[in-house]
């Protein structure tokens, strides 16, 4: 598994699981488990490129074990995917592997965890603590567990949490053969490089990252605000190691302030997320092992804000079906003249730099929980750029489920000879079918 993320972390998580399980010998520990085993198939519209895989067949599994005794809790939740047709797509990582003490007002959690700071369905500018597995759904990339310590205190109608994150967790990039690759056919994304606040480029994954998050319920509204200082895993600088002729992502230090909002107003659910990111001003020192393909990404002011707004409304039909309509929009505000700032930088910062999403979730309200999901995301500044999804899922009996989906991407590159980032997903239209056994 070439993409095996931080093997030590994963196996430490596994060890944690074993310890948790071993505690079951003591009958005072209450143990619960759940998980799923899936067979996944994915077929792309052929691109006539022998260097890419137009079909994927994979087995995937997720296991969660919870153990509890008094004020103490242990959890392990890990994910494994083995792709038979593209070994580079195979991955295994802990999503959660933590120990927690929970008192009346305080709780302390130590281990790998998923932090969710989101309110909207498609755009998630505030929800950036965890690294992502980029060979999954673009509107909801799967999260990789982040090693952290969290101290939480009840406060009013909510809580305040402080986080320490001492380890830089890299995203998992699509393989060189993947149709969803960011680097192009045959070019692997090498290991992560990290820009320190002193301007050094390093492979050292240890460093200080922290966050504080305040969460409150006020009447019909749920609000949260945060300050986060970490390595930005969403806007990597792509560069080359000239000593090995390898491509690597470089992640920069960033300070983010942001928040989320959800409120029910007469059956309508209003949602919002925002974030403003300040990048460290230190110039990157020259490195013999990393040369940025576009040096401006290291020298330009790339501070920016992102705001997402959404509305959701559900109606029941006389035949028993329920429709949920979702409308969301997101805009990036970069530094530069006027509110829009530098358009080029905005486009480089986010695939959803000024986009709207319209969606419909149709629940048939039957015993199989059959649901149809249809949505499309359109770039308001370039209507040619859009992607969409038609999905159907249902339960088969009480332990199996089936998911089928059609997804299309129309992201024509500005420079056809040199597509960048998500432009490489242009025409990576795909049909997916997943059969899953839940336990």
């Amino acid at each position, binding site marked *: 598994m070439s993409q095996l993320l931080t093997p030590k972390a994963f196996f430490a998580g596994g060890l944690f699981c074993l310890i948790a399980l071993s505690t079951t010998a003591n009958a005072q520990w209450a143990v619960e488990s759940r998980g799923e085993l899936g067979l996944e198939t994915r077929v792309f519209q052929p691109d006539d490129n022998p260097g890419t895989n137009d079909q994927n067949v994979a087995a995937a599994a997720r296991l969660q074990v919870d153990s509890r005794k008094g004020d103490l809790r242990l959890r392990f939740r890990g994910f494994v995917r083995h792709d038979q047709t593209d070994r580079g797509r195979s991955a295994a990582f802990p999503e959660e592997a933590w120990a927690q003490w929970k008192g009346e007002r305080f709780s302390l959690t130590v281990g790998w965890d998923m932090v*969710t700071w989101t309110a909207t369905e498609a755009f998630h500018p505030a929800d950036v603590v965890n690294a992502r597995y980029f060979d999954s759904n673009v509107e909801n990339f799967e999260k990789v567990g982040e090693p952290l310590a969290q101290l939480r205190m009840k406060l009013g109608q909510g809580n305040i949490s402080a986080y320490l994150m001492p380890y830089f967790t890299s995203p998992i990039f699509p393989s060189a053969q993947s149709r969803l690759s960011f680097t192009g056919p045959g070019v692997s994304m090498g290991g992560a490089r990290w820009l320190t606040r002193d301007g050094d480029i390093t492979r050292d994954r240890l460093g200080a990252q922290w966050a504080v998050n305040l969460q409150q319920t006020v009447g019909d509204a749920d609000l949260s605000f945060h300050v986060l200082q970490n390595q930005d895993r969403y806007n990597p600088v792509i560069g080359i190691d000239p000593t090995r002729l390898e491509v690597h992502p470089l992640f920069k230090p960033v300070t983010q302030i942001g928040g989320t909002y*959800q409120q029910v107003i007469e059956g309508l659910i209003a949602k919002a997320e925002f974030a403003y990111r300040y990048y460290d001003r230190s110039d990157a020192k020259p490195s013999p092992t990393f040369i940025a393909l576009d040096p401006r990404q290291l020298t330009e002011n790339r501070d920016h804000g992102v705001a997402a707004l959404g509305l959701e409304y559900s109606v029941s039909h006389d035949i028993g079906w329920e429709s949920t309509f979702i409308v969301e929009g997101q805009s990036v505000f970069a530094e530069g003249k006027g509110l829009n700032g530098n358009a080029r930088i905005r486009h480089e910062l986010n695939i959803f730099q000024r986009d709207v999403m319209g969606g419909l979730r149709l629940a048939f*309200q039957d015993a199989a929980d059959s649901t149809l999901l249809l949505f499309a995301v359109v770039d308001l500044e370039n209507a040619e750029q859009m992607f969409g999804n038609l999905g159907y899922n249902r339960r088969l009996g009480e*332990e199996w489920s089936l998911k089928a989906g059609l997804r299309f991407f129309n992201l024509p590159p500005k420079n056809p000879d040199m597509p960048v980032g998500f432009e490489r997903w242009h025409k990576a239209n795909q049909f997916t079918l997943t059969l899953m056994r839940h336990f």
Partner: protein
Amino acid sequence: MTKHRLLRPFPLTLSAIALLSGVFGNSEDANAESPEEKGLKIAQSLDRANEGYASESSTMEMTLVNAHGDKTSRKMKSQILETKDDGDKSRIEFEWPADVKGTRMLTWTHKKDDDDQWLFLPAIKRVKRISSKNKSGSFMGSEFTYEDLGSQEVEKFKHKFLADEMQNGRKIWKMERIPTAADSGYSKQIAWVDREYNNPIKIEYYDRKGELLKTAAFSDFKKFGKFWRLGKLEMKNHQTRKYSTLVWHDRKVGVAVDNALFESDELEN
């Protein structure tokens, strides 16, 4: 107040009839009242009679049966917390089918306003606020709607006393309830309330066109302290010929529960 009955279904707002003899004596004494006044008094007294249960927990098994007789099951755990000045709070954790295991729903009911509801989705570890406005949606694909299982505050209905009846040797009050919410799935409900159990033994639900839609039958009552609770509920849909049953196990009334569990930010714990 005892109004929130999500999964402690139905009868709490119609449920204090054991004390009604002290309030109304017998129905003849109240003849001077209009049916509406008497219906409201009964509903209010039932409500008061169920005050003081403090909290409740149980596990539940729901069976869905379609028109061909095919069965599927759902399992869940429920905890309810009584509050003093507003509707009650409830927390439900779904245990079966396996794909929804770990999903949790928190409801804060209110006397007049719409309930507050949150859903915890374990797959993405997210607490999502949801709207309680869509009352006529099916609960987990069953014949029960959120309206059936949700808040039954006295203030959310217009009540009308219809008749005194005897059924199987038991004294029954026949009542009419008309939902005040414009978005209710029902035009009216007819309830047969057992005076000893402080609960309905049957409710007929009429759709927005006035046609009989469903009938709920309540049975297997047990007494917990001074409170009667049903053990089985069956809902038949006359229009689709489907039916669903809900059976309670391990019910505990008045046990201590952690109040913090009923906060939205605690749903993931």
